[in-house]
């Protein structure tokens, strides 16, 4: 054994660590023959008890509050972990709700579009239905108090019909003033129907109707009235022509009493009825 090898084992030798017996014998023999290694061994032997004494003397440990802090932190950490374990379930619920909401919005949008398209197509088909009287014409007799044979045309209500109805209501509320004032006598510009085949005047309240009897519900009936009758009622028709029939829409209340009338002029007809506009 040389000095370098001795240096490697001197600590083990002093500390009493397990080394091979042959190695220990060689080291001790080398120490006897080498003054430097003998000095090194004595230094180590001097130091070792000091270090051992220091080791034994130190029984210090961390203060109690360190342990308390750590246990508290451990409890908090576990609570955090348990929350984070629960969190995915929460978030999955959240996403489920989110997707459900998105699906609901899409469904509502689709329904809205579909309804709008149906409504528009209904608007387009209504004038065509009006042209085909076989589908919704209902004939009734003895509607008018004058017991004239009239042809009643009941039309389904449409937005345009509602507008007309409101106008009738307005006229009905105005009562007799319609006929007494020149302004009321004047017929508003002709209203072009949806099918462009006929023009109508505004509704004219019938003279026997007072303001209280303004109707909320009723129906409009297409009739053909003798021209003479209308002239007798004071409607603004050409008095020179007393024969023939004039198409008219009559508003009939729920009680069966006619409330208002408007004249209808078939633009395609050759035997036109002249309607006074003034």
């Amino acid at each position: 054994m040389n000095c370098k090898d001795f240096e490697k084992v001197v600590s083990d030798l002093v500390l009493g660590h397990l080394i091979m017996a042959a190695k220990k014998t060689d080291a001790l023999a080398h120490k006897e023959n080498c003054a430097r290694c003998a000095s090194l061994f004595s230094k180590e032997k001097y130091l070792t008890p000091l270090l051992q004494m220091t080791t034994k003397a130190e029984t210090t440990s961390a203060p109690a509050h360190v342990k308390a802090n750590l246990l508290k932190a451990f409890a908090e950490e576990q609570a955090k972990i348990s929350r984070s374990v629960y969190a995915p379930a929460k978030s999955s619920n959240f996403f489920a709700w989110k997707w459900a909401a998105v699906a609901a919005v899409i469904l509502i949008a689709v329904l809205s579009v579909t309804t709008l398209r149906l409504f528009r197509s209904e608007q387009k088909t209504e004038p065509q239905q009006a042209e085909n009287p076989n589908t919704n014409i209902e004939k009734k007799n003895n509607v008018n108090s004058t017991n004239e044979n009239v042809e009643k045309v009941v039309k389904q209500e449409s937005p345009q019909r509602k507008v007309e109805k409101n106008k009738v209501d307005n006229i009905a509320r105005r009562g007799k003033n319609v006929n007494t004032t020149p302004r009321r006598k004047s017929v508003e510009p002709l209203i072009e129907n949806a099918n462009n085949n006929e023009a109508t005047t505004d509704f004219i309240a019938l003279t026997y109707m007072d303001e209280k009897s303004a109707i909320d519900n009723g129906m409009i009936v297409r009739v053909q009235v003798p021209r003479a009758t209308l002239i007798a009622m004071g409607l603004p028709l050409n008095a020179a022509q007393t024969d023939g029939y004039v198409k008219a829409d009559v508003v009939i209340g729920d009680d069966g009493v006619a409330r208002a009338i408007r004249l209808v002029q078939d633009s395609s007809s050759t035997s036109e009825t002249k309607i006074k506009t003034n």
Partner: protein
Amino acid sequence: MAILVSELSDVQLVRQMLAGDADAFEEIYDRKQPGVYRFALRMSGSENIAEDVTQEVFMALMRDGSQYDEQRGNLSTYLYAIARYRVLRFLEKDRAFVLIYDGHDNEDESLVNERFITDENLLADLAQDQIIEKVRQAILALPVHYREVVVLCNLQEMTYEEAAKVTGCAVGTVRSRLHRARSMLVKKLRGVKEPNEIKQISFSTRYAI
């Protein structure tokens, strides 16, 4: 029959702790805390740093305990390695406290911090606790890489293999560093009487009176 946590091995305790068992964590702390605290104290010489390091080591175990691999070493080695890293960080922050190793492994003994070197003429009649304090100071005066092997191998009574795992060095490096560190310590503590000498002094003093 329920098994007491005190009967469980370190590895079993770590598993239980990771499963959320506070008792297992407490048992690990009770077992390992003194060594970790003393290691930090001996390395830093500061109780405050030792406290902080101890707390940080067990916080790290609590949070990253799953990283502990029993195949790579025992729990103490794992904890000491964390403690060593933390202590070195503290020492780097607090350079005024002790000198930091400058990276030269073949450092001359004359470069050792002289702040803590004892006056050999004044130590003849030191009592045991004074000697211990002198030894502590001498250890603290060592460069960090020497200090840690002395603390681990001589004060914490680790094997070279364990110390090598803690420091991340080869066993041979630990051995050579320890040899050099002990030589430096002998030089520093020259004049400090051996424990048997102290006994003889106190014995003779008692009878002289």
